[in-house]
């Protein structure tokens, strides 16, 4: 029972990590310059259904997101259209400056295959233990749902907690139960 409670408690203390993204270092390879990563990540843009991140030369996308402080990543929300939304998504933590050529040389910290539910906004819970000490996150979108030439991502949201500033009040609540 305490395990379940602690699981829900962890979820309670998750915040949207948007505030901790170091925008100066955000990079996206193979993005269409008119439909850039900002459309999927930034507050406001990502809520707009008309603004998508689109791939350019082929269907793969490589997104690099550094953070301003060390975070723990709990779950990720990727929203997209049913056909052109991403399918296989590989996440790498703390790997700087990867390219498409070496992306398959390392084992990923986690791989998610997105279902249509996920694409509507259901969070994908990740292997929390692998993302305990994340300075930067690399998201590799390998293919999309229908196998088309262009992958379109409407929103990417990261949920987790920061390492330095864990909310003490949240912890106390667990103990009360």
């Amino acid at each position: 029972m305490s395990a379940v409670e602690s699981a829900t408690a962890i979820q309670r203390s998750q915040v949207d990590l948007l505030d901790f993204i170091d925008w100066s270092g955000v990079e996206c390879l193979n993005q269409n310059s008119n439909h850039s990563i900002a459309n999927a990540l930034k507050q406001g843009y990502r809520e707009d259904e008309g603004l998508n991140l689109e791939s350019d030369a082929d269907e793969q996308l490589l997104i690099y997101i550094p953070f301003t402080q060390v975070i723990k990543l709990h779950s990720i929300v990727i929203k997209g259209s049913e056909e052109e939304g991403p399918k296989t998504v590989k996440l790498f933590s703390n790997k700087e400056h990867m390219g498409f050529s070496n992306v398959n040389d390392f084992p990923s910290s986690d791989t998610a295959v997105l279902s249509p539910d996920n694409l509507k906004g259901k969070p994908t819970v990740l292997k929390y233990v692998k993302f305990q000490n994340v300075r930067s996150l690399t998201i590799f979108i390998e293919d999309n749902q229908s196998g088309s030439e262009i992958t379109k991502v409407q929103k990417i949201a990261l949920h987790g907690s920061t390492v330095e500033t864990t909310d003490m009040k949240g912890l106390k609540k667990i103990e009360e139960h």
Partner: protein
Amino acid sequence: MVLEATMICIDNSERMRNGDYSPSRFQAQADAVNLICGAKTQSNPENTVGVLIMAGKGVRVLVTPTSDLGKLLACMHGLEIGGEMDLAAGIQVAQLALKHRQNKKQQQRIIVFAGSPIKPDKKSLEMIGRKLKKNSVALDIVNFGEDDEGKTEKLEALLAAVNNNDSSHIVHVPAGPNALSDVLISTPIFTGDGEGGSGFAAAAAAAAAGGVSGFEFGVDPNLDPELALALRVSMEEERARQEAAAKKAAEEASKQEKGGEQQSSSQDATMTEHASGATSEADNKRNDLSDDDNALLQQALAMSMDEPASSHDVQDTEMSDAAADDPELALALQLSVQDSAKDSSSQADVSKLLADQSFVSSILASLPGVDPNDPSVKEVLASMQSQSETQQKQDEDRAPNEEKFGSS
């Protein structure tokens, strides 16, 4: 000034022996490479450039990306010509070399010199291009030599596949008397996506093409921003002045009478309206004045010393020109104009103002081209001083008398 890592792919195949580009294709290519290395390293000191050869025994990297210009220039020595160019392998090796650059913040660029026929077909070239685009590598192609087997078409297709927001370019250089490097200097390969390029390129262009530089006023904003700004500002000032002159020519007749008593907010406007009474003489004076500020100053001072009998229009012309330079002076002069229109004794006021050594020297210092230490200026000031002293004495004599009358 973009931070860039560049790989230059040189064609050293047998076809480079051809003399259709003077002195030989290979030599022309080497000159162009040297120029590019210089331009890149100069436009941003953190830029790195590397060189590889595409022919010979095989694709070989001569210099990995470095910012050391000496190394780059030296690597071209002792290069042997031979073999056939392998474009696909060359571009792929260049991409690999860029991938392993030290500073990951640098943008990646490949410059290819394609002087021989191209073996791969259009499809494979397009695939290569797309791969480059995917990894955000820009590509510049220098197409020279003979055009056979659809070479131009293939290269255009490659460029279209790579091009992302016009960051990639292609230049076709036909054989002829023009050196390869001269043709390249004016292209975006040198000037870097139209940002304005480097002073190096501008200087080389000026030397080679006879002063045709890409910049206004021939000054590179990157190299000397203050000078460029100053030139631009003075150009605009001159334009504004000329516009005002055109305006006054149109309003000549009507403003002539009203000009003297009008109190307008813009001092310069007042001045020019005054001057509208004068004929083209005013224009000539204006032109002359711009040559010698000293002479103007002496004239202005002499004018203000004179009895009010001197024509206001001419006086005001002089003042208007001086006024354009210094608002402080303009204010003083406007005061003098208004006063002189009413009362002759105000001349004393002006001369008192001018007699104030510190005030005058501060005005002189702010006038461009006038050196307060100039002997002729000093002379004028000295003569003024003596004149104003006599006037002051007169005033002092007057004042006690007035007081006497006032008190009694």
